[in-house]
């Protein structure tokens, strides 16, 4: 990653290595990669298209009309969803935004601190700590949910907003990414120069290093936001009060209503459709921070 950050001119992406060596030829569309990517795009976009179209169908149309034929029930679906248990859906949406927004923000802050510390300072046990962290990256958070529940139960914190927030603040992957990024983006010379000028360590971090780390931190924030937004098992185990449920859990209760009650498919589909918008909006808004790019360094090499 660090070499990538330094190198400014790269061979044009998409060309085969052999072609890159020779004189610039007329660019040909590489058939196999393009086809593969197209299939990949189709594979990811089809379910989205399904949700979009299915959300416009009324209960009668859902399973009886052609899959990709838009229906006529979108407005009714919205109304039903809005009316379901006095609009508890919006409560779930708000909860999800709260968990994901605050959780991702705190997680980014923690990641920035620890990533910077691991990258810049030399101290005993640094590598061990980092290796333990790497092990944490490999550990799927799913298997931690039950132990975390038992732990938080000891502290009487279950079934609270904190119980979902706390376990998601420390993200090994976030710290890992922050360290890698800080190593590449914050040159030791800059930190040294700051010290020479008599700036405190905090000042160096907050005024000099942090601005350089912004694009990386935006990435950490987005990753964490999406992870928390989509998380199911942790809130499922932690929460029992459905007013605190995030959207994933809320929609699940609409599906599993017991054998004698039909699942509320139209509401779930419409709900899932609406739940995508905050994520899309977030990506659109935050995208511009990425364009700062890795090149806006302070030291020319």
């Amino acid at each position, binding site marked *: 990653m660090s070499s990538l950050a330094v190198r400014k001119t790269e061979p044009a992406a998409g060309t085969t290595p052999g072609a890159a060596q020779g004189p610039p030829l007329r660019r040909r569309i590489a058939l196999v990669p393009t086809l593969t990517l197209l299939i990949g795009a189709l594979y990811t976009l089809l379910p989205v298209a399904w949700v979009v179209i299915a959300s416009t169908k009324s*209960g*009668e149309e859902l*399973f*009886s009309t052609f899959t990709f034929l838009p229906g006529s029930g979108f407005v009714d679906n919205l109304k039903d969803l809005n009316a379901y248990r006095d609009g508890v859906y919006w409560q779930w949406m708000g909860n999800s935004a709260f968990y994901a927004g605050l959780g991702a923000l705190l997680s980014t802050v923690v990641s920035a601190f620890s990533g910077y510390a691991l990258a810049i300072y030399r101290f005993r046990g640094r590598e061990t700590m980092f290796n333990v962290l790497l092990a944490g990256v490999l550990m799927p958070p*799913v*298997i931690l949910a*039950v132990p975390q*529940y*038992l732990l938080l*139960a*000891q502290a009487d914190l*279950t079934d609270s907003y904190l119980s979902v927030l706390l376990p998601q603040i420390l993200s090994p992957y976030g710290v890992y990414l922050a360290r890698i990024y800080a190593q590449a983006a914050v040159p030791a010379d800059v930190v040294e120069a700051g010290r020479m000028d008599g700036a405190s360590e905090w000042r160096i971090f907050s005024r000099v290093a942090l601005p350089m780390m912004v694009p990386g931190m935006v990435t950490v924030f987005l990753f964490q936001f999406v992870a928390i937004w989509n998380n199911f*098992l942790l809130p*499922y*185990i932690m929460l*029992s*009060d*459905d007013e605190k449920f995030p959207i994933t*859990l809320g929609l*699940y*209760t609409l*599906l*599993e*209503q*017991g*054998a*004698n*009650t*039909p*699942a509320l*498919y139209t509401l779930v589909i419409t709900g899932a459709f609406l739940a995508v918008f905050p994520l899309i909006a977030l990506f659109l808004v935050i995208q511009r921070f990425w364009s700062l790019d890795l090149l806006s360094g302070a030291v020319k090499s």
Partner: protein
Amino acid sequence: MPITKRSRLSRVAASTVAVALGATALAACGSDDDDAKTESGPVSLTYWTWTPGMDKVVDLWNKGQGKKDQITVTVKKQASGDTLVTKILTAHKAGKAPDLVQAEYQALPTLVSNDALADISKNVGDAKGKFAEGVWQQTTLGTDAVYAVPQDIGPMMFYYREDLFKKYGLTVPTTWDEFAETARALKKKSPDTDLTTFSANDSGLFAGLAQQAGAKWWTTEGDKWKVGINDAATKKVADFWGGLVKEGAVDNQPMYTPAWNKALNTGKQIAWVSAVWAPGTLTTAAPDTKGKWAMAPLPQWTAGENKTGSWGGSSTGVTTDSKHQEAAAKFAAWLNTDDQALTALAKESGIYPAATNAQTSGAFAQAPEYFSNQADFYTKAAEIAKTTAPSAWGPNVNVAYTAFNDAFGAAAKNKSDFAAALDKMQDATVADLKKQGFGVSE
């Protein structure tokens, strides 16, 4: 992925299972001592349930009887299914299970063997008379204890398209032999139409059919469990359906899929072996055929017999973690036996009550809207409910059900021997019981 997650979760729960069962009844007495003195002062209880509209029913309690007794109940709506059992057991491990839980009948042995449900026989004993024998027996697990109060039941019935039966010149089968003949006759008249499907995804349906045939999947012998999943009665059921699938007389596709909905809605499948809650499912699955269906008793194994199985149904239990077990039991009894509560449950939640007097109450005077052509729908249903055969659940129903899905799924797809699949299911269940540390007699 969700499946592995789920099974990993249940593994965690399973490992917490009390190792020595001792007797079937892991009497959860200890708690009685704490509650020896009558409670005074206001009590507040939490209740995990998936029943829609339950909050409105509980409001009746909080404003009426509960206000008098100073017992306030708060509903925390959950998603139904096996995952809820796991969630309850996880919470119980931390000592944080809610006071009241809704549990399906087949989950009760699991909860009891984990010491999660309290014996409330002292507080709800006189409720017994309000329920059919076979229903009540499921909450006692064959002991003197009472671990839950029955809430709703799912007696099984035979649903068919009245108009299409007439069109194809079919009569409603009263025995399973006639059922097979009907399926074959239909195939001859209209090769593209199926009478119904054997769904290898719905273990609850198969369990109900076996129950009707007299199967007893879990019984106790002394202090050991005996598993009879491949007993003669179940074998009979498996061979019957296996034969129909093999000769192509019925379809072998799973239920509850869009394709299945379509088959019902377009008359490609013209009958459904289901339970009393079928009208709700049909309303969403086959909206265009409203008013064209009719309900009849399940076909019998011997002509003149009168038996049915059950598919679904649940109860209200009090947890051992509750600090107010007496108050919680009082609420559980009220919820499932009080006339006002039962009427509200029928109206708000659309459940079919377990309490026999409620089955013929005013709330069930009218047929469901979908069955407006069959005015005596609920009168008939109440009669059928009385004929429910006893069921016998054990502490690892979820394992048996998973094994069913795997073994029968493959057998139905390949149209191979169902009896072999049944043996696989038996073996998996016995192996799991042993692994959990239960004594198993063979």
